[in-house]
């Protein structure tokens, strides 16, 4: 493994760490949000849904820019984090994590929302007539029935985080060992005219992404067959 130098290994480790943490945090955050979006009749449903979907259409640099400004030393959030003694988040792993969570939000919320909506009200009513409280129903009926949605959300979030670049560059700044992930590592190689290394990493990403999407497709076909 000649091409996996220390820098690359650290970038891979950091990427996996960032993607895993983002996935875990996002599933925890997106589940109640998606549940609310799936069930509510509130007038807030449409605006909240649109905000959740924003990262799908905005250039990552726009999100990264606003995060940088608001989290920076002069920004409103930056003031708070400094007052709390946390310093400022840009150019740190925590800042990168926060950016990733926001950037990948729709990839977690939307599959979950669709899965929750697909369940419909009937299983919840059945559970209520069988003495299950609403919280009990969520864990014993909703979660198992929406398992495919959770798998899809987790895989898409993970893969999308692995592939993010613009946000990382704006928020993380490409600091080796702290915020340099695979995508910025490739960028660095290309900038330095190290095409061979760039090829290795780029091809690896390509294969990884293809495998993920293929696996997801297989998984969804499998669950559909069971459901029919």
């Amino acid at each position, binding site marked *: 493994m000649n091409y996996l130098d220390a820098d690359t290994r650290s970038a891979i480790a950091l990427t996996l760490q960032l993607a895993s943490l983002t996935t875990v945090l996002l599933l925890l955050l997106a589940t109640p949000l998606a549940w609310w979006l799936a069930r509510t009749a509130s007038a807030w449903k449409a605006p909240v849904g649109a905000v959740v979907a924003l990262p799908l259409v905005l250039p990552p640099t726009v999100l990264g820019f606003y995060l940088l400004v608001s989290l920076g030393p002069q920004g409103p959030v930056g003031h708070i984090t400094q007052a709390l003694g946390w310093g400022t988040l840009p150019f740190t792993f925590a800042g990168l994590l926060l950016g990733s969570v926001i950037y990948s939000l729709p990839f977690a919320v939307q599959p979950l929302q669709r899965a929750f909506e697909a369940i419909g009200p*009937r299983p919840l009513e*059945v559970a209520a007539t069988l003495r299950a409280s609403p919280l009990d129903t969520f864990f014993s009926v909703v979660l198992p029935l929406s398992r495919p949605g959770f798998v899809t959300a987790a895989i898409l979030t993970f893969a999308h985080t692995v592939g993010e670049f613009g946000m990382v560059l704006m928020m993380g700044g490409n600091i080796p060992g702290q915020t340099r992930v695979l995508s910025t590592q490739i960028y660095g190689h290309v900038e330095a005219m190290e095409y061979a290394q760039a090829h290795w990493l780029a091809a690896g990403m390509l294969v990884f992404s293809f495998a993920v999407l293929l696996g997801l497709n297989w998984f969804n076909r499998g669950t559909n067959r069971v459901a029919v």
Partner: protein
Amino acid sequence: MTTDTSTALQIRLRLPRADFVLDVNVCLPGQGISVLFGASGSGKTSLLRCVAGLERAQHARLALGQEVWQDDSASFFVPTWRRPLGYVFQEASLFEHLDVRGNLQFGLQRAKSASGALVLQKAIDLLGIGDLLARRPSELSGGERQRVAIARALATQPRLLLLDEPLASLDHARRQEVLPWLERLRDELHIPMLYVTHSLDEVARLADTLVLLERGQVRACGPVAEVLAGGGAPGAAATDLLGEGLGTLLRATVAERDARWQLARMDFEGGSLWLRDTGLALGESVRLRVLARDVSIALEQPRDTSIQNLLPCVVEALEPDAHPSQQRVRLQCGSSTLLARITARSADALALAPGQSVWAQVKSVALVE
């Protein structure tokens, strides 16, 4: 209708629907099957959902015996999952992520009953689903799914069982497969059931009490034989809702079997009727349904007629029918009542009057159980 209020199901509620207001105030007996009958869109399912608390009615008071479930005058509402009821939905509603055993245990575990295992076994036996426990819902037939759904509701030991057209999604054969199990529930369980249907056959077979609903209003409510014969509080003639189903239910016993002609004689209070012999044992009690349209009237005892069932009766009353060309004749046959639907012209030609002795010719009788 006199009802023992210490066990009765009291339902008083209002619920605005898209094109009418469901407005109900009834008190149903605390035992047997009370059937809510009406056309689709008459509000019967909504009523059942309100009783379960799945839908929230306004100005409602719901109570089962002494236990109040909803009283809006005191802003009191017990959520569905805290009401000791079982609910069987129209279409099979089994949890797809659990096998049959898992489905049955779902409610059982949450009902926290001391005798859970026993109750479950009884429900399994009562519905004959012992062989299905390891199957997934997708591997069951429609009839089997409904039997599992009923057993699952029973496993929670409900004090009231609500059934929303449990046979409607089944074809004729599957329906005939599930009906006997429902009859068995009625005969062996001592919990009241509220049963929604738009099938008069199910009414005749299952009902003890019948509630006729039209556009959210109760048109008649009372013992099934009374309501089917056009009676029942609030008294307004509800025969238009019954249509061709107007008739009488007779409780009878198998008294004689004629091996040569494959006929069986059923005795009821006031007479007897010959029916096709379906192999019932002597002494067995049955329900017979005689539709008003199948009864005709003769002043003299008919001779040389193909009709086997001729009953001497006394005219009790002549009543108007839904259409002015028709006349309903209420006949007293011993202590039983028969209804005949004849044309107004025949009634006039025969000069029928209360107190008159006549012969009822019964063209067909249905054995409903």
